[in-house]
């Protein structure tokens, strides 16, 4: 507990440092302290996981009525490790990266406060502390969007985000209040033991799932995400994507899997459908996006959708009498969230570096960065491998466990349940494929090939602490990917925090992990040894067999010189996907043909433009906003500016209340 409290104390000191320290040392103080807080809190979480203890503390002060209560059980601790990793990396990155508006007093202090809020959420032990931490996290992240408030796009993103996050927080508050009222306690442990049933449970379930899912960017509540992530400063978008969205899923696991256990399985099937839709929608948009950060934002929606598929299927399986498969899924989702936190942080931070050095985020104008930024490029390659699910990277472990859980869920004698599980499996498969397209595009178009613009040509490898900040999540990705056994063993305990039965059959060791009686197993160490061995053999064979070495440009079709215009662009790479899914994406394609002056038959310039707007936003939210606007205009007649009229409203309301409550 001491480490945890020290961590929060240091995080508070970081906020104070950001608010009080002089301009020159402000960024260093606040972020160094935030990073230290991340290390302390992460250390406590890892200790708790390894030793199997549950540090907890309660104070009657700080929050009214119920007091504040901290409790770091295995579920919270596994999330806390992820959050601490993301926060530490982002803070270290800020030290070397922050400039301009993001070094202002409010920006630095708010970023530290945002980190504190993120670290607090998984450690909250009761509903009131949780809501306070949640609101701190939501409010500071909203304010951080407005750091560059002179940009209209930032203001608009903040309005969207503000509306969504506040509506979400209201829904979560409502749901938790209902549960607290039914359970007669605010502590999560007590609420889980109370076994709330009936209509109250249903309302609480729907409200909390909607609120948490909007934070995790589930369709159709995702519209804030692709706007907010590109507008926030790079470390903030990394924290938002890597940690904050993951906390949305944490909320669903904690409250809906852990407390509302008596809910009918078909509610979970509904969540599963939403999750499948958002995974596919996010993956599709990521595959067609050309803005680097927008691509990453949609890929966050995709990854969170995959996680939500896992949680929803786990809920359905548990209610449907397959607790082992459910447990495997929960563990898989926890690992997936950790992997996502690591690789998405790395990618966002790298995107910030690329934007800083090339002056653009447009993939169509990038390329060839592997030559000029080799270190960053190799780290990004690792992150992309994790995102796509290449073995030996962390993302693969999570996806593998999730697929194992879903496949185990197919072995039931219940057609409805099997169909639902199958839906999750198919969505997972399709979304993974589309994710691969998006990530290959990011790496291939952005970092390989030839530079497509002057900015990309002049890119420089960044030096100093930013590279360390990128290496940290990369190390975590590799560690989790090569040695998943220990992580699995500790994440498994989180399942019992959710009131599930133990997994028994899910075994993790140094050598690998195994699931079920069928002994389906993953042995990354053996794979690594095999890969290294095969590489050495190939190298030896190549040395023996080849007499002379001729170096030439690969994939050049025999030509010596290739120009940048001969290669795929991000737009053309995604064009087939965009064409196949045109009905969902509704792209806006514009082809302009310019002719030579002499003859109409000779074409001079063929300009192709395509942009993909968010169909949910234009189809669902625009009419909603228009309707609310019209209602507001009409309501103006009620308020004509006369003081007497307003006072009369007050009197009438008072009289009505008196009569009704008589």
């Amino acid at each position, binding site marked *: 507990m001491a480490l945890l409290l020290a961590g929060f104390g240091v995080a508070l000191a970081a906020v104070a440092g950001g608010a009080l320290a002089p301009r020159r040392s402000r960024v260093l103080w606040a972020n160094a302290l935030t990073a230290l807080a991340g290390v302390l809190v992460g250390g406590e979480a890892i200790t708790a996981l390894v030793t199997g203890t549950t540090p907890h503390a309660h104070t009657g002060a700080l929050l009214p009525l119920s007091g504040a209560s901290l409790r770091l059980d295995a579920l919270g601790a596994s999330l806390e490790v992820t959050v601490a990793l993301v926060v530490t990396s982002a803070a270290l990155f800020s030290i070397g990266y922050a400039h301009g508006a993001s070094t202002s007093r409010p920006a630095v202090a708010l970023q530290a406060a945002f980190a504190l809020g993120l670290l607090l959420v998984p450690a909250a032990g009761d509903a009131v502390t949780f809501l306070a931490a949640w609101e701190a996290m939501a409010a500071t992240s909203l304010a951080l969007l407005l750091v560059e408030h002179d940009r209209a796009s930032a203001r608009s993103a903040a309005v969207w985000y503000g509306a969504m996050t506040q509506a979400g927080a209201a829904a979560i508050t409502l749901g938790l209040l209902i549960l607290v009222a039914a359970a007669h306690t605010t502590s999560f442990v007590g609420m889980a033991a109370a076994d709330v049933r009936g209509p109250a449970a249903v309302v609480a379930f729907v409200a909390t799932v909607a609120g948490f899912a909007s934070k995790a960017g589930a369709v159709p509540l995702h519209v804030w995400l692709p706007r907010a992530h590109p507008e926030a400063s790079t470390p903030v978008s990394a924290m938002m994507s890597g940690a904050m969205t993951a906390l949305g899923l944490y909320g669903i696991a904690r409250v809906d899997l852990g407390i509302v256990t008596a809910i009918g399985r078909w509610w979970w099937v509904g969540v599963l459908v939403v999750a499948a839709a958002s995974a596919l929608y996010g993956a599709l948009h990521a595959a067609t996006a050309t803005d680097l950060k927008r691509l990453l934002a949609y890929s966050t929606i995709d990854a969170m959708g995959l996680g939500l598929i896992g949680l929803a299927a786990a809920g359905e399986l548990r209610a449907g009498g397959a607790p082992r498969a459910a447990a495997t899924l929960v563990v898989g989702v926890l690992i997936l969230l950790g992997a996502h936190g690591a690789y998405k942080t790395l990618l966002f931070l790298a995107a910030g570096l690329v934007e800083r050095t090339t002056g653009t985020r447009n993939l169509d104008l990038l390329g060839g960065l592997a030559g000029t930024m080799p270190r960053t490029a190799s780290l990004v390659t690792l992150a992309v491998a994790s995102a796509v699910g290449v073995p030996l990277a962390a993302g693969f472990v999570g996806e593998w466990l999730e697929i194992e859980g879903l496949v185990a869920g197919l072995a039931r004698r219940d057609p409805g349940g099997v169909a639902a599980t199958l839906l999750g499996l198919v969505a997972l498969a399709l979304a993974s494929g589309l994710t691969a397209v998006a990530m290959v595009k990011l790496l291939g178009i952005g970092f390989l090939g030839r530079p497509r613009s002057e900015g990309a040509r002049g890119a420089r490898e960044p030096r100093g602490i930013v590279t360390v900040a990128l290496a940290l999540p990369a190390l975590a990705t590799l560690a989790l990917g090569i040695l998943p056994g220990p992580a699995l063993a500790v994440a498994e305990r989180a399942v019992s925090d959710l009131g599930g039965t133990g997994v028994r059959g899910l075994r993790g060791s140094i050598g690998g992990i195994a699931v079920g009686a069928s002994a389906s197993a993953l042995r990354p160490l053996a794979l690594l040894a095999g890969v290294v061995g095969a590489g050495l053999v190939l190298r030896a064979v190549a040395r023996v067999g080849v007499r002379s070495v001729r170096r030439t440009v690969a994939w050049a079709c025999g030509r010596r010189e290739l120009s940048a215009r001969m290669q795929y662009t991000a737009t053309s790479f995604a064009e087939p996907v965009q064409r196949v899914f045109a009905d969902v994406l509704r792209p806006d394609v514009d082809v302009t043909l310019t002719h030579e002056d002499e003859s109409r038959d000779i074409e001079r310039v063929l300009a192709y433009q395509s942009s993909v707007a968010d169909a949910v936003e234009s189809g669902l939210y625009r009419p909603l906003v228009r309707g609310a606007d019209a209602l507001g205009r009409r309501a103006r007649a009620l*308020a*004509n*500016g*006369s*003081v*007497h009229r307003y*006072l*009369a409203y*007050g*009197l009438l309301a*008072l*009289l009505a209340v*008196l*009569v009704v409550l*008589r």
Partner: protein
Amino acid sequence: MTGVAGAVIDLAAVAVLVVGIAGLWRRDLRALVGLLRIQGVALALVAAATAATQHDVGLGVTAVLVVAVKAGVVPTLLGRVARSDPGARESAPLINVPSSLVLAAALVGLAVIVGAPLHALEPGRAAALAPLGLATVLAGYLLLVTRRRALSQVVGLLVIDNGVALMTFLLTAGVPLIVELGGSLDVLLVVVVLRALLGTMRSRLGNVALDELRELHD
């Protein structure tokens, strides 16, 4: 409860309401301020008599405080505003005086009906008078809604406050001193601010009738 103190409470409580309704009848602004002063004294009497019957020193201090603020400082401050514009009258209230009085009678009836359960909270003679406080609140509200002059509206606001205070005295034999202190300071602050505001409005806009300020909206 001794007979004399009980009678004083009865009379003073009724006086608070009657003075509040009289506010609807008088149109002269200076007379309105005078009524407010009388209401403050009546309110203090209620508090003092309650303090005497219950031997409550805190409530006695509260009574002194009420006299000082509600019968002293506040009416004096408002009186200065009224004197700076001699002969100012509530020339055209939104609802004319006879109708206002009829409405006030209806509101008193409503308060008695609605307030009847209040008696159940604390059986006793004083609690039975609590609907008078409610009626005073409603009369003050009516004053606030129907009068055009800014000063009359301030008076309406204070009548509402007095009504609330009357209810607290009658029902709970007074809130703790510190709360009453806070409440009184709040009212004082409101009056000071409003007085400054009224002064500025008069110097900029001349005559202060709130209906003429409608162009400021949006």
